Every structure is written in structure tokens, then in C-alpha cells.
């Protein structure tokens, strides 16, 4: 049975018909062609499908699509200020070598963004807590934590200037 789902996606109003049982992950990938959000396990164990739901990080494989009706969803595609550019956190992932195969990267960028919105001055331990639900098999995580830490510092410095 199809159902109409109205929600905000990456700052834009979206209205889409989809079966009521599909997950948010499938809705994004199969119905909205936003393939930046990845499936690594489909049962909430790896974090590759992380998105922001009303600003909080969720595993989109564990959210049913109709649950996002009237709510705000942000995916990796929505983080950059303009298309073709990168957010400061995305740029830090590039700069600090936090990307290898890149399959976990969208989820980790989302988890990092959620953390930084919540906590402007995270310690490395707090960054670890923030990305603990996201598995990466390539990097050993240090360069990812570096990228998030440096972005926090940049944002704090920018706030002081303002």
C-alpha cells in the first residue's frame, strides 16, 4: 500500500508516494535517487546509513519512511552550502585524510555534524562517543577524529571573531 509522505529534505519540501513499509534509507536511495546515504548492514549495526532527523543522528535503515512525515531530514547531500562545494566538516575530512574507501564517510560526516551541533567544544573522548555507532574498516578512525576536532576548533574560532 502506497502512502504520501510530506517532509523537509535537505531544506526543501518533498512530497512522495511510497509503500508504507519502506525504510527511510530505501526511500532516499530508491525513490528519491539520493545514493549518498549507504547501506552497510540494514539492521542498525554499522552507521553507514546515518542521516539527521530533526537534527539528531539516526540509522535511516531503522526508520520507516512514513515516520518522517512533517519532519526534517538532512542527508550527506544537504550539508554543503551550495551544490558542488563542501561544508567545513567535509573539507576537513578531505584535508586530514579521513577518507579511504569512502563508503562509511557519508555516515561519519553526518554523525560528526550531529555531534558538532550539540557540542561546540568536544573533547576527543566526546568525539569518540559521537561516532561510536559508525564503523570504518579502512582508517583506524584517528584521521576521522582529527577532522571533527579541527572543525570544532575552526567553528569556535569563527564564533569568537563574530
Amino acid at each position, binding site marked *: 500500500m502506497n502512502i504520501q509522505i510530506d517532509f523537509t529534505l535537505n531544506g526543501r519540501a518533498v512530497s512522495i508516494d511510497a509503500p508504507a513499509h519502506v525504510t527511510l534509507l530505501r526511500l532516499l536511495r530508491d525513490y528519491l535517487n539520493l545514493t549518498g546515504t549507504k547501506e552497510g548492514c540494514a539492521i542498525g549495526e554499522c552507521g553507514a546509513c546515518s542521516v539527521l532527523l530533526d537534527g539528531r543522528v539516526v540509522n535511516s535503515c531503522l526508520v520507516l519512511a512514513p515516520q518522517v512525515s512533517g519532519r526534517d531530514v538532512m542527508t550527506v547531500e544537504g550539508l554543503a552550502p551550495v551544490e558542488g562545494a563542501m561544508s567545513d566538516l567535509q573539507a576537513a575530512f578531505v584535508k586530514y585524510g579521513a577518507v579511504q574507501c569512502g563508503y562509511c564517510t557519508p555516515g561519519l560526516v553526518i554523525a560528526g555534524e550531529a555531534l558538532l551541533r550539540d557540542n561546540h567544544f568536544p573533547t576527543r573522548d566526546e568525539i569518540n562517543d559521537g561516532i561510536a555507532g559508525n*564503523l570504518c574498516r579502512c582508517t*583506524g578512525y584517528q584521521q576521522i577524529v582529527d577532522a571533527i576536532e579541527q572543525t570544532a576548533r575552526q567553528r569556535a574560532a569563527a564564533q569568537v571573531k563574530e
Partner: protein
Amino acid sequence: MTPPIIQAIMTVGTSLPRIDALSKVTGEAHYPGDLVMPGMAHAKVLFARRPHARVISIDASAARAMPGVLAVFTGADLPVNEYGLVLFDAPVMVAPAASAATETSFDGVVRHEGEKIALIVAETEKIAARARDLITVIYEDMPVIASIHDAVKPDAMQIHPHYAGNLMHEYRIRRGDIDAGFAGADVIIEDTYFTGAQEHAYLQPEAGLAYVDEAGRITVQVAGQWVHEDQEQIAHALGLPKDQVRVIYPSIGGAFGGREDMSVQIVLALAAWKLNRPVKIIWTREESIIGHHKRHPMWAHARLGARRDGTLVAAEVTLIADAGPYAYTTTKVLGNATVMCVGPYVVPNVAINSRAVVTNNIPSGAFRGFGAPQALFVAETQMNKLAAALGVDAVALRLKNLLRDGSITVNNTPIPPGCTITDVVQKCVAAAAVAVSAPAISGQAGSRFVTGRGFACGHKNIGFSFGAPENCAATVELHGKTTVERAVVYHAGADCGQGAHTVFLQVAAETLGLPIEKITLVASDTATSGSSGSASASRLTFMASHSIVGAARAALDKWREGERPAVAHFVYRPRATTPMDPITGEADPNITYGYVAQSADIVIDRETGQFHVRRLVCADDVGRAVNPQQVVGQIEGGVVQALGWTGLENFAQRNGKVLSQHFSTYLIPSVFDVPDVVDSVLVENPDPHGAMGIRGMAEMPFLVVAPAVVAAIHDATGVWINELPITPERLRAALQK
């Protein structure tokens, strides 16, 4: 003729951002599962899910009759129903005996749980999944042989017609006089070891899209490690000439050896060929875990003899690897383990016997380190026990016995020039300020938390071994009128995440004297490049840099001669290697080696049996770091993957059935499981075999984490652990003994 202006542009040696990083952080990069085409159908595999059974019949009539189902393919649809990297000894899909379209050696027997039975293609993934449930397969279950010990019992059932006595392969090394060697030993260390299977757990499960391209070629876009090998395997099974098959790699979500063998490639190609329609498949995590091979579990018995002054006099090792039912790369992995199992030392008297044994477990195959981590776990733990027994410093004991240029190896030939392990060990020790002796137990007894430090070092081949054909092709095109304005590099090499494509461009930029922005890379497509060989054996940076330097120089020569555009093709062939003599093991087995030394500082919770690495120092001779940031990424990632194998990753199989099919039961390291600090020490002694001195490095950080941790556990507690993974249960039990 105006010569091209070769600017001194420094690109090699700088940490340029990866060329694929922007597309990966923004989500624009396409992995195989992200690809779509108009009219695309969806496929599902029916797996046997039983470890040993004869297929009596497959009835897919109900599935075929289901609306939306386009086809159900079985092994009978494959012209040549077989695949395999070193031997064609595995069926693509198990079909009842004598049903195949052409003769093969296969007999309708399922030999492991992940064996494929059928491919269902439908308009949607959901219909394909439902139709899969309608297929009736009648099996006759057979006795399951789930351990190497059961497999070699005299009355054990033969699992595979090719492998009598369930013995797949064996090697033998004899150097000097082993009995005289041990007779002259003042101390002999003797023990038995076991290392477990490891799942690659790349975050991107197997996926692919196959279609017929504009030139009529059956094209498969997939994640793999060697496009031309995939092409050959597909062409072989479909009974087609290679040029009618094309393989392209989009972004690859990790590989680590786990994508060397076939997963979805052949079945997807079959479907696109028969249906003349694009067909896509994505495996679930569970399908990925049962559907591809694992790191070989290995059992070893080892004796090591030394004189009181620490000079090694004799080493004897028996090594048995669980191959699972098919060869995959087992013969090569076992060869590597055989060469590496006494460590990077001069040992005058050596006797090694190694065997690969056939079981009904998931097949074993390539995984970062390719047999060397298992072998070095044995060799280095033996060395650390010897140091403890002699009461000498573990590093000093190494320095006394390490291979040096001119040293004779276990294969009775000199180690290739550029043997720098002494320098690597010293640099690691300096970085860690290691004062390795083992008196750390006193003062800690009774405390819940105890600390310890351990050391280990090792070596591993770079490039293919034992006389396997080894080469790598590149093409370079130079465009412009009076000066070279831009260049195009064509290279088949796979970037599995290790950064190979960025490295290719850095090497090209340096050789051509062009800014990297003016060079385009056309990569990983059998239609546009010659074979690169695989992204494996720490070989791709080593081999590809040679090929690109060669092609770039040849293109510059043509440019000077006035050719516009100047196009040059170059195939790099390193010095030849030789296979091991079956009786003595004598060989010149490898082109060159990489060298690593590691020091681990750990803390152990004696109550829970958990250990945590506080600091891990890894010194790795990379020859020349083309991109230091990417090298550090390989070291940090390799160390953590090795720590997973050492302490966390318990790939559980019971009676041939995989029990750990999810990340909730197969635990790979999360951010909480990594060392507090990984210190990467980049040693840069130019390799005499390398272009610009470049040496391969990606496997080295994995090699000796486990024995360093085991030594640290001994340093902290006085207990030796001989079995991996060192789960909390195991460690706690050992501490309570």
C-alpha cells in the same frame, strides 16, 4: 624541435588531497550498488546454506511462473561452470550432476554454506526475493568435515575430487642439517599455535550492475581488485572470448583481499548476456559474510633452537592451513606463510612442512598480509619466548639474527638487495624508546590493571611470488602544441580505498613535470587499459609507479620527436622469481620485501580479560612515501584491522555453518577499540627495485601487531597466549590458570 619544459614540480612526497575525496565526502561517488540504468532488472542469489550435500534436483518452475520474474538461472546455464584464481576448481553455481551445458569436472556437490544454487532475475528486488523462496531444491546431506584435524584422519571422506586425502597443496623447505642444528642448541623453544579465520568486513557489501555496452560487450560494473582477472574469469565461465567481456570498477568500498575472487561477477554477466537487459544485484551483509572467502585459519607446531649467546641455529615448523573446499588463492597464501614462518632471520638449519587441508568451512583466501601475519605470529612469538628463556633483550636478540643484504634466506638464496629491517627495528625502538626485557610482573601482582610492552618485526614480499607472471601496463597521452598542456594516464589499477589513483597521478605529475590538475586519469576499465595486475601483495604502488614512469618517459620521447598527441604504452616487468623446489624449497621466491617493526604498550584488565592498546609504534620502510598522509592512513588502518584479528574478531563456524553473520556477533573495531595513539614511523630507504625508490607498504602494518600484543601480555602477566583471537574469555581463562 622545442624540448618540453620539465618543471621541477614536487608532487611525489607531498600529502596532496585524494582525487576522489570530494566526491566521497559529498556522497556523489558511485559505488556499484548506486548505479542505475533504464530498464534495469534485479537479481537475487539462492545460496545453499548447508555445508556439504549432493544436489539431487532444482525445481524452479513455480519461481519462473511468478509474475515479474524474468528468469531463473542455474549452473546448467553456464557454458563452463567453473571458476578460481589459481585453479578452476569451484562451480559458479552447483547444479545436479550431468546437467551442465558442457562437461566440467563438477559433480553436483555443495561443499560449503556459501555455495550458489540459482540466480533469480525479476522486475524488482522484492519479486526476485519472493521467487527465490519458491525454488525447491532437493539435497542429500553428506557428512560435514569442519576441522583440519578431522579432514586428515585416515578414514575421512574426500571432499573434493581433485584433492586426495583432503590435501590441497604442500610445501617443504630443507636447509642445512636440522638434527645437527638442534643438537648444537643450548635452548629450544617448542610450542603449538592457532590463528582464526577473519572476515574482511569491508563496509560495502558485494554489488554490481551488468549490461551489454554500445560495442556489444557484456559489461560488469563491480568492486574488485583486478579488472582483467575478473574479465578472464567471466569470459571463461561464459565460454566467450575475453574481448566480448568488459569489466569496470566504479568506487570500491574496501577490499583487503576479499574481492580477489569471484562473488557476483559471473552470475551477473550471465544474466545480462542471456536477457540482454541491465541486471543489478546487491548482497546483504549476511550474504556478503557467507558469500566470500576468509583469512586462512592456521595451526602450527614450531621448534626454535639457539645458542646461549642468542645465535639462532635451527628452526622447524609444521604449518597447516584450513583451505575450505576450493583453492581460491590458497596455494599462494600457503607459500607465503611457508617462506615467512621463521621470521626475518638468518637460520642455518631449517625444516618446514606446510599443508593446505580441504574442509567444508567457508573457503579461505586472500586477506591483507596473505599468510604472513599467521606465519609471523608463530615466528615472532617463538623469538619473544626465546628472548625470555635466554633472559636477553628481545630487540637485541633480533639485531643479532636479522637478515641483512647478502644474507641467505630459508629458500637458500640471498635476500634481495635493499634489506633494511635492521634500520626499521632501530627506528621503531628509538621511537618507542623500547627497553625490552621482561621483569614487569613484580609490583603489579594483585592489581586489577597491569601494563606491559611487547615488540615484534617482520617482512613480506612485494609483488607476486614463486614465478607467477608479474607485469603492469600504463599508457600516457600528451596533448598540446608547443608545450605539453595536458596529459591523460590510462591505468587499470584498482583504487579499493588505499589511494592508488591519487598515487598514479602524483607519479605521473612528477615524471611529466606537469601540475596534477592537468592530468586526467582513465582508470579501472578493461576497455581502455592493459592489465595492471591486482591491487594486492602490497604491489600496486610499486608496480604502477614503474609502469607510469616508463610510459610517461616514452611519451616525452615521442613528444620530442614531434608526435602530437604523443602516446606511449609501457609494460613494466620486474625481475623474474622462481617457484620453490618441491624437496628443498630452494627458490628466489620474491622480487623484493617490505619491512616493519612494531611496539605495543597495553593495559590488561585482569578481572574481565580485556586488553587495551595505549600506544602502538609502527615503523615501516616504504622506500619513498609518495603521499605521506595516505601512508599514515594505511598504517593506522592496518594496525587497527590487525588488532581486530588479534583480539576481537571471532569468526565462528560450527559444523560448517557460519554463526557470526552480523556486526553484532562478528565484532570489528569501533572507535573505542583502537589504540590511544598509533605512532607511524615512515622509514624511507629507497628500494633498489623501485621506481624513485618506492616500496610497497599496505600489508606491513598488519603483520606483527598480534605477536607484539602477545609479548606485551607476557610482559604484563607472565602468561603466553598461543591462540588468536585473544578474546576476553580466553585471556581471562589463561590468567586464571
